[in-house]
């Protein structure tokens, strides 16, 4: 594997990915659903990657327990598959997220990030495919109209198919083993059986095609520091937060060669500053870092997290292992 890190010389301390009023409303809908539907009794769960009883209690949020796998260090929620599937079909949430006003503010907030992602993809697809124009792109789980449109009009994309999305958009169809790229952004977080998703993706990809995953990871600074206090992590929106080690194992076990991991997350420090409150309960180092140092130090710390693959958002590029169907 080519292991590389990527970081950006830019401070994100004043940046936000979502309007706070929309975020609060969205969280309120999710929380109501979980509180009304989560059944605690007799639930047990093995690590979705290691497949064994390796989870140790980590924290509880809205009545849902989260475990940390002692082997691969991934974090996963103790819940039932039926509950998660039912959550993903929850109409109030779908209606809210597909509303014109929600989509408009998301496009406003994230247009720059999507543009940067597509530029990054242009560079990386040329690196690994020797081609970055008119590619066949399958996009799994994209729920942002603005992002879908950006991909479709990008020179990278020759043919586009949207799958597993709440958006009611007509797109083309890309046949079996015909995709140059399968995009899988922010999908793993709600996957109860990630292996099944990877099998489906393998079916879609050309033998030399690229799987591009964007995912929140459980070994990220804000996830491990804030635990249940993290206002951006909640059940059932996040039932699976694989670690970098976990993603590597998951891909290898399911017939993919990991080509590159890029720690693209830039918001860890910002999230911890936002959510840690008075920092009580944090360990001494984290308290000192966040309360006593200045913006330059915090920016350098964020850069260190990215460079060390300890930021909580990664992009992964993988290819089917040679000889795998």
């Amino acid at each position, binding site marked *: 594997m080519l*292991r590389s*890190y*990527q970081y*950006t010389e830019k401070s994100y301390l004043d940046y936000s990915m979502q309007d706070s009023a929309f975020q609060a409303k969205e969280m309120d809908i999710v929380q109501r659903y979980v509180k009304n539907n989560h059944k605690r009794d007799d639930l047990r769960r093995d690590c979705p990657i290691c497949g064994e009883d390796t989870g140790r209690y980590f924290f509880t949020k809205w009545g849902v327990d989260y475990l940390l796998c002692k082997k691969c260090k991934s974090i996963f929620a103790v819940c039932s598959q039926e509950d998660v599937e039912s959550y993903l079909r929850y109409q109030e949430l779908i209606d809210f997220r597909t509303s014109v006003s929600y989509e408009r503010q998301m496009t406003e907030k994230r247009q720059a990030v999507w543009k940067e992602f597509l*530029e990054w993809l242009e560079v990386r697809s*040329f*690196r690994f495919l020797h081609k*970055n124009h008119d590619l066949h792109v399958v996009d799994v789980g994209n729920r942002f109209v603005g992002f879908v449109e950006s991909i479709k009009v990008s020179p990278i994309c020759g043919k586009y198919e949207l799958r597993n999305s709440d958006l009611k958009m007509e797109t083309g169809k890309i046949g079996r083993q015909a995709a140059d790229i399968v995009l899988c952004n922010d999908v793993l977080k709600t996957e109860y059986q990630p292996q099944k998703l990877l099998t489906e993706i393998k079916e879609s990809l050309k033998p030399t095609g690229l799987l591009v995953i964007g995912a929140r990871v459980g070994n990220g600074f804000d996830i491990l520091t804030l635990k249940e206090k993290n206002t951006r992590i909640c059940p059932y929106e996040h039932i699976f937060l694989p670690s970098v080690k976990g993603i590597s194992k998951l891909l290898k076990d399911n017939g993919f060669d990991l080509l590159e991991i890029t720690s693209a997350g830039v918001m860890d420090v910002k999230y911890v500053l936002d959510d840690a409150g008075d920092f009580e309960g944090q360990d001494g180092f984290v308290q000192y870092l966040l309360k006593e140092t200045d913006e330059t130090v915090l920016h350098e710390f964020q850069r260190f997290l990215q460079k060390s693959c300890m930021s909580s958002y990664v992009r992964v590029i993988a290819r089917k292992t040679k000889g795998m169907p």
Partner: protein
Amino acid sequence: MRTYKTVIIGMGRMGQTRFQAMKRHGGFDIQALCDNLPERLAGYECCTYTDWKECIAHERPEVVVVCTINAVIPDVVCFALASGCHVFSEKPPGRNLADALRMKQSYMATQGQVLKFGFNHRYHNSVIEAKSLIDSGFLGHVVAARGMYGKAANLQREEWRNHLELAGGGILLDQGIHMLDLLRYFVGDFSEVSGITDNLVWKNSEAEDTAFAMLRTLEGKVATLHSSAIQWKHKFDLDIVLTDGYIALNGLLTSTKSYGEERLTYYKKELDPLDGKIGNPTEYTLCFDEDSSWDYEMNEFYDAIHGDGTIINGTVEDAVQVMSLVEQVYKKRANKKEGLQVG
């Protein structure tokens, strides 16, 4: 996997490095090793020789790997090619342009054999990434480059590198040649060369401790090189200026880690940024923690022998072109020493 009967001539540091890479590859059956210092051959489970000609003549290998001192390289390469062998040779391709041309002539007379020179830096991850970035057109096209490659060297130490008769040159030929090769790789063939070589610190050394070169292509692209044996800390920096962006390669991952972390940084031209701050574009930096360059290089050599590919990097033409650049810089030195005007 088809394996090729192989001998390695010269078992100094580079011979050992190539030995390990060939073992990892698995397509080379290393039957014999040769070095004029018998102590370097101890501990290997294969035939050993102290006479390279006898080694090749007796073993009748399919592949000869040449890791000798510069002065011996052309003789071994030409003999091996004339014996029908595929040849992988360490850089530099001899001591001067005449040596490189002699090897080219031998190669032209062969029957489809493979000759590859070890311009290993082309296989470093940062260099591979830079080449991909340039070829993608994402940042426009290259207009200029500046390379700095330096180390801490003792030119008074008694070793072959410090004798012009054996080495052919100083820091420019020993190390700067890698940077010259990369400048050619990224910028193109140079039609104009000017340069200075000097002994700024090691005044009594035969070999230069410093070289500067300015190069220009027919299309007007410009490159500069600073090659130094008196950097006093290992250093590798290559900046590439493109019409729509910039690429910087800093550090080089080596076994000693003395050149620092290997990184590639790039950014795109942004003259109308949203925040109004010109000159502060978003930078992307890739840091590499694996050096597979020796393996990539051996893969290309094997594939070319096996008929699955051709030599792309380190061709005999690359060797001749880069030795021509080196020779032109050295000519300026000779002119200066003879009191002629430096071009």
